[in-house]
């Protein structure tokens, strides 16, 4: 469907050119000051003494362990939340049942909970004085201050990302394509794989990217359940904090720069996906 090109509009209702220019200048200035300058500060602080200390800080064994742990946590939490998000989006968008709105609200709940609380709840459950703490201690199972706790806290924090990206898109797409597939004899799995999934793949990818960025960058929640054991339960963000508290500023900013780079790549990819993929359709008015 080609929408006819918008007619050239005579701007009757528009601001004077100087107002326009001033507004743009002001916006660029304020956003630059508030958003861009911090990023520049990270780069400058990290490179204060050239590249050598940066490389040294990142290849330090503790830093490498932190990077490995961060990747491992993301590799577990992101697939879990992708699967859960897909299931949630499928049942919320493609079926009517009582309590649908409530379910969606509950799924978004972790967004409105402080990251510290997201970590705290796991300590309350599995910590030494938690509900299940003694039982776990008897069996020598470590959850808090170990990998399982870090993963659980990360999953909690990144829980809504995929579902939240998919639900509005799938609701907008409606059910008729799936119904058409059913009348043509497709099974449930065939319908999902051949009809639904291709229609949401870019949105799904975008949700997964955001989920991943948050999983790798999460600080508050993992800080509470980590125990800060160097080389063992320190993720990259936590490693930054330790270095900073030890006045190893260059090292702290070097690792921070690495994480900032991840954020920039995520943003660029997301922008690209939104411009070309199915999310663009959601933004455009339906023709």
């Amino acid at each position, binding site marked *: 469907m080609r929408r006819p090109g918008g007619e050239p509009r005579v701007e009757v209702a528009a601001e004077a050119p100087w107002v326009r220019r001033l507004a743009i200048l002001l916006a660029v200035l304020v956003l630059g000051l508030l958003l861009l300058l911090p990023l520049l500060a990270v780069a400058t602080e990290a490179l204060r003494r050239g590249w050598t200390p940066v490389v040294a800080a990142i290849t330090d064994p503790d830093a490498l362990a932190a990077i490995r742990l961060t990747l491992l946590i993301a590799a577990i939490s992101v697939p879990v939340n992708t699967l859960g998000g897909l299931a949630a989006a499928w049942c919320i968008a493609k079926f009517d049942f009582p309590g649908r709105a409530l379910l969606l609200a509950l799924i978004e709940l972790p967004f409105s909970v402080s990251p510290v609380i997201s970590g705290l709840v796991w300590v309350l459950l599995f910590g030494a004085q938690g509900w299940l703490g003694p039982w776990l201690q008897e069996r020598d199972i470590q959850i808090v201050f170990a990998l399982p706790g870090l993963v659980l806290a990360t999953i909690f924090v990144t829980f809504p990302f995929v579902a939240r990206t998919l639900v509005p898109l799938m609701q907008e797409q409606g059910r008729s394509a799936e119904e*058409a597939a059913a*009348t043509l004899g497709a099974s449930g799995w065939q319908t999902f794989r051949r009809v639904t999934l291709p229609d949401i793949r870019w949105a799904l990818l975008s949700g997964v990217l955001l989920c991943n960025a948050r999983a790798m960058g999460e600080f508050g929640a993992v800080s509470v359940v980590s125990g800060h054991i160097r080389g063992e339960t320190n993720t990259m963000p936590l490693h930054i904090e330790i270095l900073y508290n030890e006045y190893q500023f260059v090292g702290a900013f070097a690792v921070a720069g690495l994480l900032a780079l991840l954020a920039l790549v995520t943003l660029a990819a997301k922008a690209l996906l939104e411009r070309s993929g199915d999310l663009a359709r959601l933004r455009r008015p339906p023709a």
Partner: protein
Amino acid sequence: MSVEILGLSRRFGEAQALRDVSLSIAARAFVALLGPSGSGKTTLLRILAGLDFADSGTVRIEGRDMAEVPARERGIGFVFQNYALFRHMTVFENVAFGLRVRPRRARPPEAEIGRRVRRLLEMVQIPELERRYPDQISGGQRQRVALARALAIEPPLLLLDEPFGALDAEVRKGLRRWLRELHAQLGITIVFVTHDQDEAMELADKVAVMQAGEVSQFDPPDVLLERPANAFVAGFLGHAARLPARFQGGTLRFEDPGLGTLPGAALAVAPRREGAALAFVRPHEWEVRCAGEGPGEGPGEGGRNAVIRASRPAGGRRHLEVDLAGLTIEIEVEGGAGYEPGRPCVIRPRTARAYS
């Protein structure tokens, strides 16, 4: 493939979408479900396809109870109102979908799929579009793709939901003719939903007129127009003036004194009971006599109870809007000039369909 619908009811919350609907559709029939929006026609169609489920009642297709048969096993073709094409697939892949999702044993080989898809695209007259995506083709072309896709599984029964609803008048006309030819050529049963009575009358050999979840009448178009089963059908199909009347001693007496009476024998449909009745008179069923010169035979008799408000030619005939004591009545008369606006006339119905 014959379809037997028995006592179907369906309720959505407070709204009763279908109320004890029964219909018997013969094999190879071309049937329209016609009614205003909210009359339950789309619900009925979706239940036939297995896309919705009745609260009670049965659907038998070719004698087989469909209650436990899921949509994907019914083998019924369904064309959706907005076509529901798969956006990320080419036209070719859309049409091939129904063949590709078959279990391995029943799946035709790739070359055969290609042959069949091309033959279908040929049949719906868009062979050149096979590599396009749905958002690269026009509305009418999408309609054809949707049809080809539904026909690919060789359904003995084809269901269409408002098939031409989203298309402009010119395209509609062409597609209608083409669909009728297709029906003749394929010899399958077709049921389609429409709110456009011209479409229903032109295409279908039997029309089910629906209202508020019930089938008011299920008959061929001629019968529907000639002998509407009730006041709703008489008022819904074609144009007709609605006039209050009384039926007494075998005679219909119009409440408006100027319109006189009609003997029972002159009525196309007579009321079942004596007493108050509602009469419907179509535009060509009036007699018009005007005062002065011109058409009609001399000065009117029995009083001057009507005035011509507007008059326009309509293909060799004349279409009048006549004011009858505040009521506007549409009348079609033979002949051309002489019915200029402002002229007082006497009008009376030649016949009527009356319901108590």
